[in-house]
């Protein structure tokens, strides 16, 4: 594992807190974009030998997670004329506190899992688990459809970090398939957010409560 990997993962963890604590939707999307770019860089660092395939993979990840998806999200908030605040269901301070507790738990939990000797001391597993937990937190505590998409993306980023340990097991084609699925998912979610805003003149999922027992 490359020496530069850990500092980048620390930056990724800090961006999680930006995404949790920011009140402006734009800031959250910027944090997400930066996280995507950093993750693309980690792909190169995680490989011991850098081949054309690795570079291609990193470029695809940066393009999708750092540029295309954030642009789609910005487009969605411009298109839909809405208040640009995050609308959390719980307060920002509580979100940050829960995020801190989640990160601590992730670090403790990853200590109990047996780690291969070449990965001992590396931040990959705790960073991955705490990013997944942050994604869940954003998903469950934000009312706007678009912030739920952000939560899903953060969750997906956490899984992506874990994938760094398995660069040999995941063939290039499958990695690209995963990214393609992510892209199409965000695309369809974007269309639906657009419809939600047309239908209910809001993008809050609080209005999506007609279907229940």
């Amino acid at each position, binding site marked *: 594992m490359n020496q530069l990997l850990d500092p980048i993962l620390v930056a990724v963890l800090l961006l999680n807190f930006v995404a949790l604590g920011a009140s402006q939707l734009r800031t959250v999307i910027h944090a997400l974009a930066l996280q995507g770019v950093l993750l693309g860089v980690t792909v190169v660092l995680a490989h011991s030998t850098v081949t054309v395939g690795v570079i291609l993979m990193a470029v695809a990840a940066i393009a999708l997670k750092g540029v295309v998806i954030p642009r789609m999200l910005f487009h969605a908030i411009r298109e839909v004329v809405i208040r640009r605040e995050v609308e959390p269901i719980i307060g920002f301070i509580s979100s940050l506190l829960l995020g801190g507790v989640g990160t601590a738990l992730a670090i403790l939990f990853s200590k*109990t*899992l*047996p*780690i*291969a000797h070449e990965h001992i001391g590396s931040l990959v597993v705790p960073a991955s688990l705490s990013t*997944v937990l942050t994604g869940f937190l954003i*998903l469950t505590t934000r009312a706007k*459809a678009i912030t*739920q998409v952000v939560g*899903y993306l953060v*969750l*997906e980023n*956490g*899984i992506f970090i*874990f*994938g760094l*340990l*398995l660069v*040999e*097991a*995941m*063939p290039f084609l*499958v990695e690209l*398939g*995963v990214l*393609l*699925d992510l892209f*199409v*998912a965000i695309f*369809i*979610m974007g269309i*639906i957010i657009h*419809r*939600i805003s047309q*239908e*209910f003149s809001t993008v809050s*999922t609080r209005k*999506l*409560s*007609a*279907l229940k*027992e």
Partner: protein
Amino acid sequence: MAWLLIVVPLLTAAAAAAVPSSRWRPWLVPLGGLAHLVLVGCALAGAPVSAFSGWLSLDPLGKLVLMFVSVLFFLCALYAPGYLALRADRPNRVFCACLLAMLAMMTLVILSHHLGLMWVGMEATTLATAPLLFFNHNPRSLEATWKYLLIGSVGIALALLGSFFLAYSSLHEGLESTLLFDDLVKLAPQLSRPWLHAAFVLLLVGYGTKMGLAPMHTWKPDAYGEAPGLVGALLAGGVTSCAFLAILRFYQICRAANETAFAREIMIFVGLLSMAVAAVFMVRQRDFKRMLAYSSVEHMGILVLGIGIGGLATFGALLHLLTNGVTKGVLFLSAGNIHRAYGSKLTDDVRGAIRRLPVSGSLFLAGFLAITGSPPGGPFISEFTILNGAIGEGKFVVAGLFLLLLAIVFVGMGATVLRVVQGTPSPQAAATTFQDRPQVVVPILVFLGLVLLLGVYLPPPLESMLREAAAFLEGGR
């Protein structure tokens, strides 16, 4: 051969997207289904199917599920042109293309022996079905689609994390990390236990979300309630079967790793929980399509429970996969017809379905009797086999709870179904134009024929397929 099974439906989907005529386009769906069925027949009869150095291959378990999904899709596809002709007001280009794309992606999931590729296929089925749920383009279907897409994607993301954990469990022991199913089964005894356990739980939660097991089932009533009956039948019989197959693959790895007891305990718990949750929500259910969704939650629970019990119940669970799927075909399609005729799916408005729609109403009643385990329907045999297996394995408490929950479901579901079929239809309902026509009734009759066939007589080729699949699942050490 293997890739043809995936490419042919995809090409038909592209053709459906290209055809300009909305009247003729729906006929491409049964055409694609028929081509797929013929190819599956060749694949089952011919030499072992394998492609891309074992990434795609057809094992006995895959054969069973592939055959079933192909038949189910073809019968549902026969219903599609008649249904879409009734909904001529709605554009059907995306609908037809997505139906065929869904078939291609289900085939990909069934054939893949690479767990990463299987994940890609599974997520693609979620994406292909989302536009199908949104067919009605109203606020309610919008809400259902959003929940389905978000919950499904998050669940499936957890399954990806689980797949990664599984790959790491082999890397940790100094073995080469792999996601090829056959390699993982071979390496299973040496895999790192903590990672394997964590992986199984994540995978059961992840693919269990797609299958609709409690407590990850919350998208299901909304999605099945708002989707056209045809889509409900395909989701309840097809996509859920693929997710079940994915869970079975990981169960096999656990078995090969001598962790059968661990996997079984969790599966029995999740199975009984799903049945219990479904039973609670089915009592006094006013919406008959949501009732069918809870019935699907219940039967997914029965499938997982059967595998968790093991022994004879494994055979029962695999048979139940088929019997539940074809019975759900009867129920969802006939419920769709009733919904069309009344313009409502609440028991407050829908009364006297047997008088208003003699064929569809009777089929709905027959489907209800079959799904709740009345002889001579197919589910009776499969549920009885699972019960037999539970008693044979000495799991008397599980057997008792299984029977109790089945009884509660029978009463709860019966109350709703009888309200729908009995009585006299309201004047508004009698005034609508929908009538029982051959296009929308014959596929359901064929489904009912299959339900009865599976109940009274299991054709020897099918029985040997089931036995091979059960042996493949239970053996493989």
